[in-house]
């Protein structure tokens, strides 16, 4: 074990969490839609890192492949085919700002009060790790195990989702073709 490697892992984890949070904030708060799509892509890259830390490199790859590679590119095509820029929202007045801050304070107080009163959040969350350490894992969670379970235990949902994707593609073609004039 290299000295300081735990610090390095912690720093990488912090960067990944910050990427996810910043990406979601950009996606939600920016006024230009194309920046919002970029924020969604950033958020999905951060999520892929989180999946990697959760012990699933396969899902991290799939997240980048599907979300960044397919979903974001499709949304960019949608942006190019329409004019989605929205007007800048009117600036917050003092009264609205006061109401918003009050709502945040009240909800934080209710949440903290509920946690303090029941006391179960911290106990149950810190119990989670211990339970999984106690119970032996049925499989190792590798790509091989995922493939085997997709074709045995989950074969019906697997086939159904392929049907759903087929119907979605056909439906998208039919709907988008609708009002088009024949040349």
């Amino acid at each position, binding site marked *: 074990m290299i000295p300081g490697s735990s610090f390095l892992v912690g720093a990488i984890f912090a960067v990944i969490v910050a990427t996810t949070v910043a990406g979601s904030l950009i996606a939600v708060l920016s006024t230009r839609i194309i920046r919002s*799509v970029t924020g*969604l892509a950033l958020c999905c890259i951060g999520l892929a890192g989180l999946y990697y830390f959760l012990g699933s490199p396969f899902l991290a790859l*799939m997240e980048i492949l*599907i*979300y960044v590679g397919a979903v974001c590119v499709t949304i960019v095509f949608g*942006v190019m085919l329409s004019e*989605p820029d929205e007007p800048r929202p009117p600036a917050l007045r003092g009264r609205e700002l006061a109401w918003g801050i009050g709502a945040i304070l009240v909800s934080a107080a209710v949440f903290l009060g509920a946690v303090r009163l029941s006391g179960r959040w*911290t106990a149950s969350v810190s119990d989670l790790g211990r339970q999984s350490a106690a119970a032996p894992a049925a499989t190792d969670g590798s790509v091989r195990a995922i493939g085997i379970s997709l074709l045995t235990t989950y074969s019906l949902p697997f086939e159904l989702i392929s049907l759903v994707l087929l119907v*979605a593609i056909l439906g998208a073609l039919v709907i*988008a073709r609708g009002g088009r004039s024949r040349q």
Partner: protein
Amino acid sequence: MTPSLHDQAGVYLAVAAFLLAAGIYGLIRRRTFIGMLISGEIIFSAAALNVMALNRFAAPDPVVGQVFVLFIMGLAAAEVAITLSIIIAVYRNYRSIHSKEVSELEG
């Protein structure tokens, strides 16, 4: 000794809760359909991250959560395809995809 930060379920659950809150806020605040679609995708991601965190820390079989998240991704991709085609059809009819201007329905 407490485990390091990336070995605690609470961190992942907090990030997922933040993503859910950001997605709901965007869904309310956005005025165009594409912006609302992006916020919906963030909510999907929050659900997937929650499932993966509980799968890592609580489930006896680590395959279940990964398969479930794969299904979530497939459904999200299908949803994006359908929604974008509807958006394009609406834009062709109304010349706008602002949610305030698209307020008439015809049978």
